[in-house]
């Protein structure tokens, strides 16, 4: 019994180590592609959020000569004033066509209105459909409001009134999230990458050892040998599992390396992802291997050809992400019931690990146990299906 299993297992490992497609999906697709995509997305969002404060913003102004003080104030806020279009109509057109993101128009009587303490009118042209322009417009509006408040305070002081009467309420925003906690929101998507890498690692082996074997015509001679089909199937699932485990390990390690080089602290995040967490995450996700391997073998043995198997397994690759997605959208907290759902339980526990929060031993036990039970169940179904005559197609 074990000899057959080991023989099949070793053959599948050697066979697939020599297959460029299997190897690429195990070593490159999941483990390398995931972290790279992740690094790209994160650095993009870091750049965007840092843009606001640091970069000099250009603001075309029409009629800058009517408000020299305002212009000086804006320049002190790192806004570079340039000469705008000739008149307000031209300004509106320039924003509409995208020539400028935002244009400030100061009318001729701005100074006079200010002197007469009539609310002095300025016009800020922007295009709400243009996201980049929206950010610039918000920044200009913030700067103008600040100038507005400053003038108001000066006027009140001049009349002998404390400017604080205009601030009956003071709002203090206190964010209780820890740097690790903030990381979890963004890094929550990491668990998806791990499960993706895990499945990708074994995908081609699962297809090759069932649908591929049938398509090549090597399945029928194999089934005519004096071994049981269950033994053959278990050997194949075991080989698939080893490729998956390898892919998962690589994926965890490459994330570990990538995170070291990411300027996450600039976003106020310090994910708890040291080597100890890498090891813990591996053992947390490892029970998913049996489930994934048997699921992919099951799907591949249903299908008639390599291509058909590939199509269906791509669907399987998406399935474990659905619970993660739903929980992320609804921002649900870990609950006992969730721990019975494979992929979801691993995701929630992993997020807690990254947040560096105390882990619930019961939750982990249920997650491991229920995932293994699901895996064993699917393996059993798989063995049943392997005994069908229709397996030969």
């Amino acid at each position, binding site marked *: 019994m074990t000899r057959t299993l080991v*023989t099949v297992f070793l053959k599948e490992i050697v066979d697939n180590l*020599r297959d460029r497609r299997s190897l690429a999906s195990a070593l490159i697709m999941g483990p390398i592609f995931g972290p790279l995509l992740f690094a790209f997305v994160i650095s993009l969002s870091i750049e965007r959020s840092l843009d606001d404060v640091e970069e000099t913003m250009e603001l075309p102004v029409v009629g800058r000569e009517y408000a020299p003080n305002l212009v000086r104030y804006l320049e002190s806020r790192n806004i570079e004033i340039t000469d705008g279009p000739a008149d307000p109509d031209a300004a509106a057109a320039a924003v509409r066509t995208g020539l400028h993101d935002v244009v400030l128009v100061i009318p001729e009587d701005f100074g006079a209105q200010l002197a007469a303490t009539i609310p002095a009118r300025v016009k800020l042209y922007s295009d709400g459909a243009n996201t980049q322009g929206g950010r610039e417009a918000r920044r200009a509006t913030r700067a103008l409001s600040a100038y507005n408040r400053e003038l108001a305070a000066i006027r009140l002081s001049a009349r002998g009134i404390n400017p604080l009467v205009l601030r009956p309420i003071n709002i203090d925003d206190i964010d209780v999230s820890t740097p690790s906690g903030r990381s979890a929101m963004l890094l929550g998507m990491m668990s998806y990458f791990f499960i993706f890498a895990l499945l990708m690692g074994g995908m081609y082996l699962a297809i090759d050892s069932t649908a591929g074997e049938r398509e*090549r*015509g090597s399945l*029928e001679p194999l089934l005519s040998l*004096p*071994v049981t089909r269950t033994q053959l199937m278990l050997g194949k699932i075991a080989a698939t599992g080893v490729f998956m485990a390898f892919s998962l390990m690589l994926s965890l390690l490459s994330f570990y390396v990538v995170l070291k080089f990411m300027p996450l602290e600039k976003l106020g995040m310090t994910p708890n992802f040291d080597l100890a967490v890498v090891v813990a995450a591996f053992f947390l996700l490892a029970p998913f291997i049996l489930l994934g391997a048997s699921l992919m073998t099951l799907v591949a043995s249903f299908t008639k050809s390599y291509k058909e198997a590939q199509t269906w397994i791509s669907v399987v690759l998406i399935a474990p992400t659905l619970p993660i997605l739903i929980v992320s959208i609804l921002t649900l907290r870990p609950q006992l019931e969730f721990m019975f759902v494979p992929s979801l339980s691993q995701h929630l526990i992993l997020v807690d690990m990254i947040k560096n929060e105390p882990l619930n031993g019961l939750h982990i036990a249920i997650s491991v146990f229920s995932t293994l039970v699901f895996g064993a169940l699917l393996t059993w179904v798989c063995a049943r299906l392997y005994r069908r*005559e229709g397996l030969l197609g």
Partner: protein
Amino acid sequence: MIKVDRIHKSFGNVQALRGVSFAAPDGKITGLLGPNGAGKSTIMRVLYTVLRPDKGYASVDGIDVVADSLAARRRIGALPHGAGLYPHLTARENITYFARLCGVEKGVLDDQVDNIIKLLEIGDFADRRTKGFSQGQRTKVSLARALVHDPQNVILDEPTNGLDVMATRSLRDLILKLKDAGRCVLFSSHVMQEVAALCDDICIIADGVVAIDDSIDGIRERTGCDDLEDAFVAAIHLVAAE
């Protein structure tokens, strides 16, 4: 020794086998002859146990292929129609894999693989990966794979398909060697001449039933045709007339 007794097998509405009976004794070559779609492959698949008969009984060396399929398979070396190899493994690795699965002991494994490689004259390409092998090379490796555990009963489903003259000749020599070693060889083909040149007994199958099961001379006599091809056609018409 292979025995087939009134085997029935249907696929959906198609009756592939409608009570096929024949016997293939040890030390003889038995030919299964029939037009395409007659049921030759189906009966062989029942024998090497990848298909389960709906009705009837079949045995290999007295072992029921349904009740004890594992033991029956141990007595069989099968070459299914269009058998494929593992392209990433060498010919030797393909053969060794099957030998291990057949339970060939570690101590004799390498010797046995070497012997079969010598017997089938595939030493020149035994250590090359099988990707890109010619049809003849592939058939020889598949055959080596099926025979490596030295089975008493050999089932070959259209083994000469796609082989050139030289390859066909060496395959014929090999089958004769198996016969001389006292093996039971069951061999299917749709080419009359090939079967006539090789077989001791011929079982002509048409439309899922046995039309004639006899020696070559017996078939000539019963159909009244001297030419074997005419005899083949006459036998098939016999079935159609029923």
